[in-house]
């Protein structure tokens, strides 16, 4: 797993995806920080965190699009799948590489929090809950993007499809408001990504939210492993 992880981190930076991802992510965090905290003269960063949900939907597909589709296209996948490593190592090696880059991106808003703390009182408990939520959100989204990337050999297709899938997850609440069937509404309510995230940014930390996002990450990574297993047997 270590070898794949290191290679992917290297590839992020040689393919310039890392720079684009970090730059765009930081531009938006910068703007939201300016608009949400500095302009309103508050140490409450929840506006920034709420806005970053949508930014993740746009940016995470860019992070994950290349991971498996390019392997397939360049036929390097054959080298990976005939190496003495398990499918789990391959999938998680790539997954954690993307997650690491995402975590690096989160360092910037953390820096803003430190800046704020020198001017006023920062509610650290709430802030850490927000960071945890944003991190887990990314962890779930990256797993989804990774699965889509494993299903195609076209980077752009992977990015667009991941974006649409994430958008659908985001819109679950909107879709839900049109449905009158009580059972369906309840199920969709449980699956809502944004409602759970929003609750945390408002200061309502709930351990079930953590379990939900972690479960999504695990389930989608498991699906990715299954995709490769099935392809081998087909």
């Amino acid at each position, binding site marked *: 797993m270590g070898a794949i992880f290191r*290679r992917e981190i290297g590839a992020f930076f040689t393919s310039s995806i890392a720079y684009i991802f970090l730059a765009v992510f930081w531009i938006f965090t910068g703007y939201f920080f300016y608009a949400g905290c500095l302009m309103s003269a508050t140490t409450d960063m929840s506006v920034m965190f709420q806005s970053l949900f949508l930014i993740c939907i746009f940016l995470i597909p860019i992070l994950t699009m290349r991971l498996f589709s390019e392997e397939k296209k360049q036929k390097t996948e054959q*080298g990976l799948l005939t190496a003495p*490593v398990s499918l789990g190592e391959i999938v998680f090696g790539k997954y954690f590489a993307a997650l690491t880059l995402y975590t690096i991106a989160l360092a910037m808003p953390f820096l803003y929090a430190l800046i704020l703390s020198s001017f006023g009182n920062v509610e650290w408990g709430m802030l850490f809950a927000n960071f945890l939520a944003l991190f887990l959100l990314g962890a779930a989204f990256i797993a989804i993007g990774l699965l889509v990337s494993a299903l195609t050999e076209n980077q752009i297709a992977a990015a667009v499809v991941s974006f649409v899938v994430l958008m659908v997850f985001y819109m679950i609440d909107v879709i839900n408001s049109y449905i009158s069937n009580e059972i369906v509404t309840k199920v969709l309510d449980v699956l809502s990504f944004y409602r759970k995230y929003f609750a945390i940014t408002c200061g309502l930390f709930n351990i079930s939210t953590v379990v939900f996002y972690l479960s999504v990450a695990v389930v989608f990574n498991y699906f990715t492993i299954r995709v490769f297993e099935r392809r*081998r047997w087909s």
Partner: protein
Amino acid sequence: MIEVRNLTKHYGDKHAVNGISFTVDDGEILGFLGPNGAGKSTTMNMLTGYISSTSGQALINGVDILEDPIKAKSFIGYLPELPPLYVDMTVKGYLDYIYDLKKCKLPRKAHLTEVMELTMIADVQNRLIKNLSKGYKQRVGLAQALIGNPPVLILDEPTVGLDPKQILEIRTLIKKLGKNHTVILSSHILSEIQAVCDRIIIINHGVVAAHDTTDNLERNHSTDHRLIARIAGPREDIVKALRNITGIKYCRADMEREPGVYEYELEATPGTDIRYELFEIVAKNNWPMLALRSAELTLEEVFLKITMGSNVDAPVVETEKAKKNEKAEAKEEEKGEDA
């Protein structure tokens, strides 16, 4: 060592590989020969665990590739048809990555240097793979297979894209490696397989059409009795005269190579040497003979011969289907001869 028993791969109704069995011992080089789409790469992909087999077994050093894939794969160095190279890495960086990927335990620096020197890529080690020529890329692919010094090497057309000097060097290297490795090598080029391999398997339509040692194949399909002569003179008369040579089976004027000079394809019954008589005829008629060479054995010819089964003493035909194919093709051949 590699043991393959009744390996089969079906894609829906299509039988890509149908019941192939063979063994390769330690220190042996086995050649895989066959036309495109015959099932060579599919067989290799099954041996290396890239795809699963529909039925049958492949044992690498006694380990079933489907039962304990990670252990079995650790015995194999594989060079696929297209080397799996990350083009945005340097040669050294890439080999370093492969070293980690294979969880290699040999001393890193010494081993990588050794592999790069063996495959003659040490001079490009700091260059990006995407900037290398096809020949260098192929050799980086070979280097990747050699990392970790695996006891089994599976090489799918290892000399594609190399220049003649490099081909010779790589062949020498494979031969050297063959002394203490188990090697399977596929190729379209018969001369290459002849130069390197101890045994040859010819695959057609997913079945083993022939399985023999290189020596036997050479003996059985030796081309001494097939000649190509370039003779200046009237074409019709020459063909007529040549057809009178004792023991000649077949004579045909081929292309016009020089103005008024044709090449003639001659085939005598095996074991007869028609060169003396040929010389006498052209000398008597005062037709200058500009060139004489024995017809090269092309893959297709050996392949056709073996699948048609006319000249082979004992081809190892592995399955019922192959026998049926053989009969059908033999019939067609008879029909062709009648016509």
